[in-house]
């Protein structure tokens, strides 16, 4: 098998990894914001519930959560929630979205609570509503504060997608095992690193650019 064939085959697997990565971000960032609002809520039961969920999700391995999402509905209730062609992918996506939303929610919470009280008070004496205060005053300061920790999480997510292999999602490691490892071809396993390095390199450049774009003000 030629180098090009192997590259193309692995690229097919990486496409699935990428899709899992991108969709996880699309859903977990807004969900994280909702959870962070929940855990900051003055309505105590809601805040306790959100903090409990965050504790459970952050306190258990992502791999276990993958198994739980994929197998538990069938084992306990006898329903095949994730069947069909994309069933495994969907199950992995659900687990990833919840897991990352919890991590993001804590980053958001820290970012929102880190905005000095004086900013809220200045907005208040200028007659702003709570909504105006959040969107015109607080939000951009939060974005700047959380950029570094969020970029960290995002980069971790790229590599965490490989955990989806445990429920046989056809991501890059799974493809490698089926196609090459099974034929005792070892080197493509390590060649996979190149795919991740290039992608993470691009993300690093992107976040560096964002940081530069936001460097015109200090918070």
């Amino acid at each position, binding site marked *: 098998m030629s180098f090009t064939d192997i590259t193309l085959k692995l690229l097919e697997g990486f496409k699935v990894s990428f899709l899992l990565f991108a969709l996880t971000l699309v859903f977990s960032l807004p969900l994280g914001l909702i959870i962070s609002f929940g855990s900051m809520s003055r309505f105590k039961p809601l805040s306790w519930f959100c903090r409990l969920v965050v504790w459970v999700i952050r306190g258990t391995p992502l791999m276990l959560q993958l198994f739980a999402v994929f197998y538990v509905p069938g084992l306990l209730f006898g329903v095949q929630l994730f069947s069909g062609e994309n069933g495994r992918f969907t199950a992995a996506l659900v687990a990833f979205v919840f897991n990352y939303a919890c991590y993001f929610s804590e980053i958001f919470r820290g970012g929102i609570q880190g905005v*000095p009280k*004086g*900013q809220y*008070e*200045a*907005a*208040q*004496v*200028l*007659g*702003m*509503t*709570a909504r*105006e205060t959040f969107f*015109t*005053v607080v939000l*951009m*300061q939060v974005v*700047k504060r959380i950029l570094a920790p969020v970029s960290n999480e995002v980069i971790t997510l790229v590599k965490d997608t490989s955990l989806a292999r445990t429920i046989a999602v056809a991501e890059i490691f799974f493809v490698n095992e089926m196609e090459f490892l099974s034929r005792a071809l070892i080197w493509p396993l390590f060649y996979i690193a190149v795919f991740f390095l290039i992608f993470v390199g691009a993300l690093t450049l992107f976040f560096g650019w964002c940081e530069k774009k936001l460097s*015109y*003000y*200090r*918070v």
Partner: protein
Amino acid sequence: MAYLNIKNLKKSFGSTQVLHGIDFSMEKGEVVAVIGASGGGKTTFLRCINFLEMANEGTIEIEDGFKFDAKGTYTPKDIRSMRLKMGLVFQSFNLFPQYTAWQNVYIPLQLRSKERLKAQYPLFKARLSKAYREAEKSALAENKKRAEDLLADVGLSDKMGNYPCQLSGGQQQRVAIARALAQNPAVLCFDEPTSALDPELTGEVLRVISELKEQGRTMLVVTHEMEFARKVADRVLFFADGVIEEEGTPEEIFCHPKSPKTAAFLKLD
């Protein structure tokens, strides 16, 4: 009735009572300096009349403005409209760091104009009309001009495009003053406006406040600058332990204090 009337204002935090019934009034165009040791309740007093803290008891009244009674219930909207009658300049400026000097003044103005416009055109359909768009456009131009004028008044015409981090403390505080003036408050309050500044920068801020006095602004200034209080204020209040221990003209307070507490404080200073 006086322009600003405060009766029996009380405020506690938990079991600590900070304001023990403040009675105070001021006339339009008057400048009152508030002096006193830290922990005497000066800042809490300002925060209560700007509704950043809610007084537990008492009334705050502005002629032709509003009447607040601590016993009443107020919606967030009521409180916002009362806040707009008062202005507050903070010790730590609290400019919005992501906006330029000009945007700091313009954005809050623009938000309030939009709210007023929307109240005039409550229906979504009406907001598609030409009249609404025209009104929106003229409000925008007006606010733009007003923000520019206000910054020019505090001597910052050439710094309008600068971000707060590019300005000195004195310049930031002057932007904050312009921003507070934008809403045209009935009473403009200052909470130790020069305490966070290097000594060489306090002059420019105090000069701006003096100029505002000449324009007839009603101002209430909490300050540690005794020289400034003596020169600019029409009246001085000395706060101690949550009450107005003594009040009078600068001459009376600084040269012939009646209360031993006042005398002791001024000597310490």
